[in-house]
């Protein structure tokens, strides 16, 4: 090394030093768009606890085997802390779009996470794409979302095709064991979540030889579901496959009970069927219900961080992590890890770091093989699990490697 190089490297080092110093004092802003008011506000309230738990993990030093947990702040940016900026979309895609643009242009967030409703994720991610800001879909599960050729869209969790596929494979396995499953009933709400979910299920049913005995698209937040339930009751499918948000789930279960109808089996697309509010309201009517999930507390036996993170979350939210909150929490950890590796707050560089993500499943709190995104931004290794609600708690019943019990089938037998 000659004098010139020594001098240059010295300059470079000092510059890097000031840069790191500047970053350490700076907060990295991340936009979080969830329904904080409106009929699904409870999802947003829970999401806030989950996201803040993740921020705690990133910003403080924790003895957890998760990326960015050991250091206080992001090591790649000289210990910079992340800060969340919340916005409320009220379940409305247009409000979501407006809030996303405000977060990007006024608050200067480096990335956006959201949004529960797939319909909102669709508009928000389109805005993010235009501004070159990465969007992480934490808990929106419509398959169409990652098929739009967006460069800045990432989804660490499974989508409804993967979830539905797991459901049908589960039914196939039960059939092989001699259980009677010939007919299925589709019951889904009329926004993108329910419609997409049912499209996949209709196709899977046709491919695998299940007869669709009843196929009901209903209006979300209806004052009454009596006529709808009457149709399900008349058809009496072997398995009911509902895709519903919380209010409708509560009403559906109450109406079934009122009309004296006990479904043979319910295999649900989570959402309302994994919300604590549902179990508080109609838990007694849900015994034996099976829901797909991205998360299982049983996993704590194999991955110690699951139990510890759950305790941290519980201290804030006064409830256990569930399907939604685990994905929300993970979304911030995935993003923080990418920013850390990008060593930059530039949208393009964070995008590149996200695209290069390769986190083994053991370094997450999820039952996934790994986190590795396809060119479309989907993590195909996010294995779904099926949980059965028995005696007031969820038990993992599928797939075999994660199951801790045999399913009770039929649920009302």
């Amino acid at each position, binding site marked *: 090394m000659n004098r010139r190089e020594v001098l240059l490297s010295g300059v470079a080092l000092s510059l890097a030093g000031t840069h790191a110093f500047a970053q350490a004092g700076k907060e990295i802003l991340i936009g979080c768009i969830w329904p904080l008011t409106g009929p699904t506000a409870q999802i947003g309230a829970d999401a806030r606890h989950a996201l803040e738990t993740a921020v705690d993990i990133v910003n403080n030093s924790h003895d957890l085997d998760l990326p960015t947990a050991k250091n206080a702040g992001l090591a790649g940016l000289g210990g910079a802390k992340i800060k969340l900026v919340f916005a409320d979309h009220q379940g409305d895609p247009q409000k979501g779009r407006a809030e996303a643009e405000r977060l990007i242009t006024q608050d200067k967030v480096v990335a956006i996470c959201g949004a529960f409703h797939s319909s909102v994720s669709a508009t928000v991610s389109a805005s993010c794409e235009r501004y070159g800001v990465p969007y992480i879909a934490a808990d929106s599960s419509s398959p169409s979302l990652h098929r739009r050729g967006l460069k800045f869209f990432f989804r660490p969790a499974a989508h409804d095709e993967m979830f539905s596929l797991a459901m049908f494979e589960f039914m196939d396995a039960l059939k092989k064991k001699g259980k009677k499953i010939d007919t299925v009933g589709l019951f889904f709400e009329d926004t993108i979540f329910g419609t997409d979910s049912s499209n996949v299920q209709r196709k899977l049913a046709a491919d695998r030889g299940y007869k669709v005995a009843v196929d009901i698209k209903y209006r979300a937040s209806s004052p009454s579901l009596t006529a709808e339930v009457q*149709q399900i009751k008349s058809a009496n499918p072997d398995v009911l496959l509902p895709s519903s948000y919380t209010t409708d789930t509560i009403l559906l279960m109450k109406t079934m009970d009122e009309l004296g109808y006990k479904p043979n089996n319910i295999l649900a697309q989570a959402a309302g069927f994994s919300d604590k509010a549902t179990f508080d309201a109609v838990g007694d009517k849900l015994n034996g219900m099976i829901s797909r999930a991205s998360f299982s507390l049983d996993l704590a036996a194999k991955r110690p961080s699951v139990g510890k993170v759950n305790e941290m979350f519980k201290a804030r939210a006064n409830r256990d992590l569930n399907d939604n909150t685990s994905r929300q929490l993970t979304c911030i950890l995935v993003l923080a890890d990418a920013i850390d590796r990008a060593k930059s707050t530039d949208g393009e560089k964070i995008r590149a770091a996200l695209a290069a993500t390769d986190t083994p499943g053991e370094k997450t709190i999820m039952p996934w093989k790994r986190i590795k995104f396809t060119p479309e931004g989907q993590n195909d290794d996010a294995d779904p699990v099926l949980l059965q609600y028995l005696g007031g708690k969820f038990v993992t019943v599928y797939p075999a490697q994660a199951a801790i019990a045999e399913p009770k089938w039929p649920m009302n037998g």
Partner: protein
Amino acid sequence: MTTQAFLQVIASGLLLGLIYALIAVGLSLIFGLMDVVNFAHGEFLMLAMYATFGLVLATTLDPVVLMPLVVALMFVLGVSVYAGIIRYAMRAKANPGMVQIFATFGLALLIQGLAQYFFTPDYRNIANTWLGGKTLNLGGVFLPWPQIFGGAVSLAVFAGLYWLITRTDFGKALEATREDQGAVALVGIDRNRVFALGWGLGAALVGIAGAVLAIFYYIHPQVGGTFALIAYVTVALGGFGSIFGALVAGVIVGLVEALTTLILPASLKSVGVYSLYLLVLFVRPSGLFGRL
């Protein structure tokens, strides 16, 4: 579809329709009395449901027993809203109609925001009531007791209102004020007092609906919106200001909605109601029993 299933849908639609009518009648009353559309009507309903929920928690009594207390609280709320807001809104010199709309709409947003803040967005549910979870089985047609109770209360309320308006002095003052707000002052009726009592009565009526609904429906800060739109359509269909119209229109809305679901996909269940509403608007703009 079997006859039994068809009868089930009709019966459920009828019971729900009676409850729609009960929700709508307070709105119709206030409109008929003073030409003010209360955009906070759904929020009044929500408050009544929370009041029922809160009183059940506090006293551990059955919601049916607590109904009179809820209704009294709602009456006080109605009178206070009139005295604190509407009275001033009606005095606006420029564009009083818009001022009234903004006043009640703003009130709706305020109530919703406060409910979300104080009650949290959690879904509430009153468990273990006398009627809750019990169903009457009429040869395969299932009628839940809370809804039967709601329908019966609705009919009783309409009978009571009929009596109140036709047989009491207050009812006559109410009718007279409706006919001619200016002239009643000449015969010594305190218009302001009639309006205040009218608001109290309107809120008390939606309070009854809320107390009934709380027995079988989930409660959360936005629940008013689910029913408010139907209440507006019911009032417009029956004729603004017509009490009897609200009853008939409520039942029609309930039945049409249920029957539409049998013919069209369930996501289009409102199409029948709105089509009927548009038809009535074209043929008879004042609504079925309106006097406009």
